[in-house]
């Protein structure tokens, strides 16, 4: 666990593609009844979207909100497990698309669903050490679930970006503390050249998700002297609706402290973007002074936990760019056939 010093979110952006498929529509194919389904509906990227284009969408919003010259960005880290290229960086495409300069660090990260929050840690280190003025931490995924698998109901698409810089009066939120908790736990994986990930079913629960997420949170709270009642919002990684609520129950949290950060019920689980999108939704409504605890989970397995403190700058910066609500509400429902076409499940060549 680490106390951070003088680092803040200067801009943030969340992006959710326009298309939604109802879990019921997926269940129709596989003979599942409504009460068996883990979520209501999930966000599906369009035919022309991938984790690169969504990372760009989120990054552009974050830069716009920060109101900075993108040439001042010194590092871009994109976390994703659905890179369109096995070899060729996403970060360089994002950099050129947002108008960043050439003398930057551009590196992609992979750690299942927590690659986005890992990016935050790398960027804060670079900012804190004075090596860069600003950096972008992005989580973006077009998550794939094998047709017929339990993951198919939840594996979703989305991206979120945090533009991080030195702590200033007009910052959105300071990043106060961080902790990470990792072990070698094979709960979910995807082998090289496989299209879909595999998982160990119920083994993804207790020994994986719960152990790591609670591990990172508890140590952060205990060691840094925070108490649960000091925290106004909790945002957890959420592979479904049940898991984050079980964490809330284990921590004895009031429902209103977790509900703003819950998105999986209506957006699904866009892997590296999931907990960050929950954070974006919270930032869209939080007040200066509010404390936020963000805890991701990545299979394999690990969890990053952060404590953020909302600052005065949020009031003005929030309205500079579209909010997550704007993307959530403009949904278009698609059927399974369109879903199969959009997500490359039809072999066209």
């Amino acid at each position, binding site marked *: 666990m680490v106390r951070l010093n003088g680092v803040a979110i200067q801009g943030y952006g969340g992006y959710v*593609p*326009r298309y939604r498929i109802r879990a019921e529509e997926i269940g129709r194919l596989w003979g599942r009844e409504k009460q068996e389904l883990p979520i209501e509906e999930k966000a599906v990227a*369009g*035919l*022309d*979207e*991938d984790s*690169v*284009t969504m990372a*760009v*969408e989120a990054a552009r919003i974050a830069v716009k909100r920060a109101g900075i010259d993108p040439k001042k960005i010194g590092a871009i880290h994109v976390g994703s497990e659905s890179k*369109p*290229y096995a070899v060729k960086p996403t970060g360089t*495409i994002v950099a*050129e*698309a947002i*108008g960043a300069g050439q003398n930057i660090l551009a590196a992609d990260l992979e750690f299942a669903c927590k690659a986005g929050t890992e990016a935050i840690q790398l960027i804060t280190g670079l900012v804190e050490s004075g090596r860069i003025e600003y950096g972008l931490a992005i989580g973006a995924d077009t998550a794939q679930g094998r047709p017929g698998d339990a993951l198919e109901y939840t594996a979703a698409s989305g991206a979120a970006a945090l533009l991080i810089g030195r702590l200033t009066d007009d910052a959105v939120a300071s990043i106060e503390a961080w902790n990470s908790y990792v072990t070698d736990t094979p709960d979910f994986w995807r082998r090289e050249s496989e299209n879909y990930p595999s998982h160990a079913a119920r083994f993804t629960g207790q020994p994986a998700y719960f152990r790591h997420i609670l591990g990172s949170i508890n140590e952060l709270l205990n060691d840094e002297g925070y108490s649960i009642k000091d925290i106004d919002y909790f945002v957890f990684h959420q592979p479904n609706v049940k898991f984050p609520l079980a964490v809330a129950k284990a921590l004895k949290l009031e429902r209103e402290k977790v509900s703003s950060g819950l998105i999986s019920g209506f957006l699904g689980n866009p892997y590296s973007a999931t907990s960050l999108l929950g954070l974006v939704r919270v930032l869209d409504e939080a007040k200066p002074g509010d404390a936020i605890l963000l805890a991701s989970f990545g299979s394999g397995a690990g969890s990053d936990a952060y404590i953020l403190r909302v600052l005065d700058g949020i009031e003005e910066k929030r309205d500079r*760019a*579209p*909010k997550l609500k*704007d*993307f959530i509400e*403009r949904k*278009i429902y698609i059927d399974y056939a369109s879903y199969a076409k959009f997500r490359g499940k039809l072999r*066209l*060549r």
Partner: protein
Amino acid sequence: MRVPRYWRNKLFRYRLVGWRCINCGAFHHFKPLVCKRCGSRGFREVELPKTGKLLAYTVVKIAPADFKDKAPYLIGLVELDDGTRILAQLTDFSQDELKDGARVEAVLRKIREDGESGIIEYGYKFRPLVG
């Protein structure tokens, strides 16, 4: 499109960065030597505004070979906020939103892919303005 050709002009495709004639104001998508409108030779690099309105649209049903797996898709004529007119694919439109005069914004999308193993070509498209 061959890789070097795609790469050379990515600034316009990614960010609508082009060149405007200092003399007559004509916009050039790609770096010119001579102004296509007035023949003068001075240009300044400009980044076009990312928002505008849809002047007219149509649907491509029988697509060129590189776009066969994308059809049907929308093509629109967009007038950007500075008056520059630009042809673009439209994306993320619902049927109700698809009307002349609709407010639109530029986004980066996949334009086409060179098969399963070739490069992915990204470029601008326009969608209904969000927010």
